[in-house]
């Protein structure tokens, strides 16, 4: 089941989406869909059977924190693992994300090892 998991990667920078997608492919996750902000991501999440959400915070349209809150507020999506992958590094922001129910928080710039560790850790739970 693990390697067939469906990932949704949300970031407004297409370069970053490509990086994350490539890293996920390296880790053996071939089923990766992209979205460029929360507004386009949310209908995809509601319509598709995604298993894992990786999202940036700072995006035009709907920011990642709002997307996280929307996911947690939707009974069908509430339990989905959400990994925040962002350059937002203020302590209160990380606390805010934690309070909103984030499953993991990776700060940019990040390494392939860190991303793997956090995904593995979330999937263990």
């Amino acid at each position, binding site marked *: 089941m693990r390697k067939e998991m469906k990932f949704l990667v949300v970031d407004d*920078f297409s370069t*970053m989406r490509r*990086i994350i997608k490539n*890293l996920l492919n390296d880790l053996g996750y071939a089923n990766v869909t992209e979205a460029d902000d929360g507004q386009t991501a949310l209908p995809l999440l509601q319509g598709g059977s995604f298993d894992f959400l990786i999202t940036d915070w700072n995006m035009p349209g709907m920011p990642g*924190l709002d997307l996280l809150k929307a996911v947690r507020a939707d009974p069908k999506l509430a339990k989905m693992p959400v990994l925040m992958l962002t*350059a937002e590094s203020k302590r209160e922001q990380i606390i805010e994300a934690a309070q909103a129910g984030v499953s993991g928080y990776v700060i940019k710039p*990040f390494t*392939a090892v860190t991303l793997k560790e956090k995904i593995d850790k979330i999937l263990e739970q």
Partner: protein
Amino acid sequence: MTSGISALRKEFGETLATLARALAAGDEALFLAHLDHLVQRRERALFNDLRRLTSDLQAALERFRVDSRLVDLAEKKVPDARQRLDHVLKLTAEAAHRTLDLVEQSAPIAERTAAQACDIIGLWQRFRSRQIAVADFHEMLRRMDVFLEAARTDMDVVRGNLSEVLMAQGYQDLSGQIIRGVITLVGEIEVALVGLVRLSKSQSSSVSTLQHEACRGLGPMVPGADRGPAVSGQQDVDSLLSGLRV
């Protein structure tokens, strides 16, 4: 001022004459009605003056607001933006160097692999056409062993380098976020300057209010430009989150 007097005469002459006539005739109602009319006319002029004064005052206050916004932009935000752009320069230079280093490391490895394959091809073709001597056959096997082993380790290195090249492209996201912040600042300066120009052209025109972007994230931390409690890396994030039991 003679024209002033004649204007006054034109404006009030008729009414005053009517007033005098009403007073002489003892027509109280007519007298009071025209007196009220007179007073109302004076009040209207007074209100017009007052309205003009108020709008002047409002324009002055707005100009002050635009001025202080400009001062804030010039004193704080512009140097801050310069620092952010400097940081972008550093990020892009680092990423470019990292990428070039990795390409320079990988190119000789690829060349070596190609050269080793070349060394074997001649022997291999003779083997395929069954024209190889036994000694050459053994030499070919020896070279094959060396080649396969080297190709495996070399290509692992190249694969690793390619992954690092991939990661190095993350600078585009980080620098892009910073540049977007600077673009927003330039927009703000533009609005403030346009407001100032408009105010100096016409006292009465109103200034469009400066819009403040809702806080949808702050973007990457820029060393020197950002202060306040921030984490310094992934380890900090992890310990903060484990404290919060995430």
